[in-house]
């Protein structure tokens, strides 16, 4: 299992950056998810790690060894392509055996290993079929089997579940996670689905516009987003972000609301924006609770019923609607007033000028 290090790795196509200089360390055995919207450079990053794409600058190290200019076949990695890239003229068995045959392994051990992997992925009954005759999910399993069969030092997976329908994604997600735990292989996993990223990653690297926005555990990117982009992108719905004005320990919010900032935040905020200045208040839907004595007054705009909870969309003023999570016991008719309070441990603040989070102890 390998540790992968990217040092100032960048990729330009012509004059424009697909990936701006980025630094990242993926520890041995870790499951790291690259998460970001379409076109942010996830695939390019993965392809640079694999060697399928040459870097335009920077260095890539595997276990401390410089592999920047090594051919993909000399890096001992497996790559699961977004659209499978199975060998269409071969059966599933031949596809899975291919990496072993390419290395000239003896026939008997190939057969044994292929059967082992097929059993692990539960595709024994498909082994004589060709990719064209398999469903998307089955093709994906064959592609995974082909990647697994060689026991590589690292797995690179590019949206491996992107082509599957919702129901199947859930079970494949669990399967990949289980495989990772069994094999304990370093894995870099690309997705644009933040739920998938949170569910699977030991660490999530959020990318946007060719830049790494945050690199942290799922809990960190969820609870302590580094900037407004991450706050909005992670979670469904994302974090509530309300424009306000801070002065003397209070934030003036739209609709003549005032929010008393918890005392432990005062010094941090003063250091960041001073005693008087614009600020953005952020909180997750579950950080708010409806309370008649709450400081923030709203009107119910709409409500969504989910199985185990209700998501309230509350209008603070015409331009500001926040999402608040409530139990499903109570009824909230549209148009009725509602007040809410915030859990002081779960409020976050952002500087509207830099769009960065204001953090206790500064930005790491």
């Amino acid at each position, binding site marked *: 299992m390998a540790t992968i290090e990217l040092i100032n790795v960048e990729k330009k196509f012509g004059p424009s950056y697909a990936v701006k200089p980025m630094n990242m360390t993926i520890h041995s055995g870790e499951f790291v998810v690259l998460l970001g919207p379409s076109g942010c450079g996830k695939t390019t990053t993965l392809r640079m790690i694999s060697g399928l794409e040459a870097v335009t600058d920077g260095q890539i190290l595997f276990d401390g060894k410089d592999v920047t200019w090594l051919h993909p076949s000399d890096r001992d990695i497996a790559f699961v392509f977004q659209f499978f890239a199975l060998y269409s003229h071969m059966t599933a068995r031949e596809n899975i055996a*291919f990496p072993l045959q390419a290395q000239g392994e003896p026939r008997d051990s190939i057969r044994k290993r292929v059967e082992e992997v097929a059993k692990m992925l539960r595709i024994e009954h498909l082994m004589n079929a060709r990719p064209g005759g398999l469903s998307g999910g089955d093709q994906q399993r064959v592609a995974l089997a082909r990647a697994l069969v*060689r026991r590589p030092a690292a797995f690179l997976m590019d949206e491996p579940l992107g082509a599957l329908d919702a129901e199947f994604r859930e079970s494949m997600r669990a399967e990949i996670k289980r495989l990772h735990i069994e094999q304990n292989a370093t894995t870099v996993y690309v997705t644009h689905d933040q739920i998938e990223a949170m569910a699977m990653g030991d660490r999530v690297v959020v990318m946007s516009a060719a830049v790494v926005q945050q690199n942290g555990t799922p809990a960190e990117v969820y609870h302590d987003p580094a900037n407004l982009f991450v706050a909005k992108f992670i979670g469904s719905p994302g974090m509530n972000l309300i424009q306000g004005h801070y002065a003397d320990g209070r934030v003036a919010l739209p609709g003549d609301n005032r929010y008393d900032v918890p005392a432990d935040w005062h010094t941090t905020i003063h250091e960041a924006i001073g005693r008087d200045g614009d600020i953005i208040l952020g909180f997750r839907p579950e950080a708010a609770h409806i309370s008649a004595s709450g400081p923030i007054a709203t009107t119910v705009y709409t409500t969504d019923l989910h199985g185990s909870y209700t998501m309230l969309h509350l209008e603070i003023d015409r331009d500001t609607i926040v999402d608040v999570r409530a139990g499903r016991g109570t009824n909230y008719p549209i148009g009725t007033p509602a007040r809410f309070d915030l859990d002081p441990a779960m409020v976050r603040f952002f500087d509207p000028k830099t769009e960065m989070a204001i953090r206790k102890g500064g930005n790491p």
Partner: protein
Amino acid sequence: MSSYSHPARRRHLGDKRLIQMFIIPTVVLLILMNVFPLIYSLYLSFTEYSAINPTPPKWVGLDNYKKVLSDNLYWHNFAVTGRYALISVSLQMIVGFGLAMLLKEKFKGSGLLTTLILVPMMLSPAVVGAFWKNIFNPSFGIFDQFLGYSDPNTAPEWLGDPDLALWAVVIVDVWMWSPFVMLLSLAGLSAIPDYLYEAAAIDRASAWFQFRRITLPQVMPLLLIAVLFRTIEAFKQFDLVMGLTGGGPSLLQGTQAVNVTETVSVKLFRLAMPPQAQTGLSSAMAYVVLIIIIAISNLYIRALNKVREG
């Protein structure tokens, strides 16, 4: 008077009748021009008959076929054709596919080069034959000069030497038709998606392993089609031979003199046309050729299906 007032009548004229009216002339023409000659020549192949003779066809049963299949003289023509087809098609496949592999990667001017290579294919075989006859000429042709012979007296006489003449026809055929194989191969090669090679690079396959396990099987259907087309053409080889050697030179084989480049089609032509005009015998020979071509085509098509289905 308008069709409006006679909707029923209009229906009668429509659909089925209309279809028949369009199809019947075609069918009649087809029967007159293709089916009838085919069947009539089949009948003639069982008779002794000469088209320039007033005597009516005389039924002789399988005699013509026996003669064509057992007489060494005819057997020689089949052997020449078979050898020619085997060598020529093999070389065309190697040269054509090789060129395609080289031209697969785009480079500056590769489009122009591809077009230039295709030119021989677009020429008339009669013209090609006439040109190459000069090119092969030992005293002023450039072919021997290219090979380094400066003295016309010692230079090989490609079209006159019984050992070389068939090779001369093969060389011209390869020159003319390798581009066709190249074109089909290029189409096949460019249809192979890049990601297969990316996957293979990840799977640590060597260049040779990739060629053997990905490139070849992926282009195989098109290669087989090229082989099929070229083999059928080779079995019908007529115009190039007529233009280059006219079937000669002749060689004494045992007690018989044989023409070393006389393919079945050339022989057939000689048999069928005056002065010989052995219509019955030549019909039998034509049918043997037809059956051979159908058999070969079937073998290839079977192979093709096998490649497709795995």
